[in-house]
């Protein structure tokens, strides 16, 4: 076998990569929704704080955010609890990538909610819907349609950003490719394999996103 069983290792790493990406996306969507609602809230200080945090995270390199959370959190937590606390690389990766995803997603969500005509929520109020019902039954399904293309792009960015978690020692696809590359002295081969797997996952994601975009717009007749 030309790849000496490293292919299996890389595929195992691929699962880790996908797991990190999925967890970060779920966490990021929650962060994004919270961010979007904080940014549209009446209280000025809360609004400015949320906007400030989003601005900072969007402006920093992904690597810096990841390292800050992985190495910085260990120090802060250790100081609080007065003994050494080890932060898991997986958790740090998910939190860092999720925060980055969330800070971009909050803008997508804000735009999506603003795209709904105010008449829709007013109609809901007139029909005697509660605030929660208006949100889940009227706003969310309509905002979803506007948010899908933006979220789809963010998902593709996120997938590619997961490559950096290898730098904090997580055994993801890049890490396995690195091990294979240094053992066999064939870095080009193995990094190319990793690249092709990323290419496959992103292309597949693109197909799924297109499907959902068409599906979310199925009631819209132009």
């Amino acid at each position, binding site marked *: 076998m030309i790849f000496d069983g490293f292919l299996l290792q890389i595929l195992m790493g691929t699962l880790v990569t996908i797991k990190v990406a999925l967890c970060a996306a779920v966490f990021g969507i929650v962060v994004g929704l919270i961010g979007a609602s904080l940014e549209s809230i009446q209280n000025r200080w809360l609004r400015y704080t949320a906007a400030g945090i989003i601005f900072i995270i969007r402006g920093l*390199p992904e690597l810096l955010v990841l390292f800050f959370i992985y190495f910085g959190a260990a120090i802060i937590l250790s100081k609080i609890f007065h003994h050494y606390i080890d932060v898991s690389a997986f958790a740090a990766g998910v939190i860092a990538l999720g925060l980055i995803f969330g800070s971009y997603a909050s803008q997508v969500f804000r735009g999506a909610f603003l795209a709904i005509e105010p008449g829709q929520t007013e109609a809901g109020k007139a029909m005697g819907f509660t605030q929660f019902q208006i949100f889940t039954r009227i706003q969310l399904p309509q905002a979803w349609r506007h948010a899908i293309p933006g979220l789809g792009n963010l998902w593709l960015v996120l997938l*590619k950003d997961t*490559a950096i978690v290898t730098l904090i020692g997580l055994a993801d696809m890049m890490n396995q490719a690195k091990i294979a590359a240094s053992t066999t002295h064939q*870095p*080009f081969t193995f990094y190319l394999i990793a*690249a092709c797997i990323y290419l496959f996952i992103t292309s597949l994601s693109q197909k799924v996103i297109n499907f959902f975009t068409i599906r979310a717009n199925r009631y819209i007749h132009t």
Partner: protein
Amino acid sequence: MMNFMDYLPQLASGLSITLLLMIASVGTGLLLAILMTICSYSDKWIVRKCINLIVFFIRGTPLLVQIFLIYYGMGQFEWIRSSSLWFILREPMACAIIALSLNSACYTTIILQGGIQSVPKNEIAACHAIGMPKWLAFRRIIFPRAFRLAIPAYSNEVIIILKGTSLASTITLLDLMGVTQQLISQTYATIEFYIIAGIIYLLLNAVITGVFMALIKWSAITGKASQ
């Protein structure tokens, strides 16, 4: 409490490498992108296909993989190591610039193509009507117009390149991120140095945003809404 001023020279040298990486990649990337955009409108089917393939590959893979492929990957081939190209490809700086500019060129190509598509059709029709040749119309009317439309998206791309330069620290380059890591391993002042690096990156962001705001103002068509 230590004095952070002592580390200013190291941080400044890191900053200069980050800036060098960014400016070189933005410049090369933009030139490549313009070339690729022109080629993507070529009459030759094979040229269009090649451009699409390159853009598809680069946009579908992480920047880190591209940097590793160029820096570590090229050494695998004996004929590259023995060729005169090895002079360039063994330098981490050159590899980082190559990877970043290729990456940026592909994203910018998409941005420019989007700009060209949003040039009003009647303006292109007007070029044909007064008998401009295809290339002249592209050079004088379509491209400047498309570039103006693409500036806001392009400013985001430049910020993405700035953030991407931090990955150069993974191939032993001592850019701002690399210097920060080095200083942390010397002083154990983890949080402090990450915050300093973060502030510098944010300031660079602000400068880029300011430059592009000025560019948008400068390039706006005066006396007429650009719609």
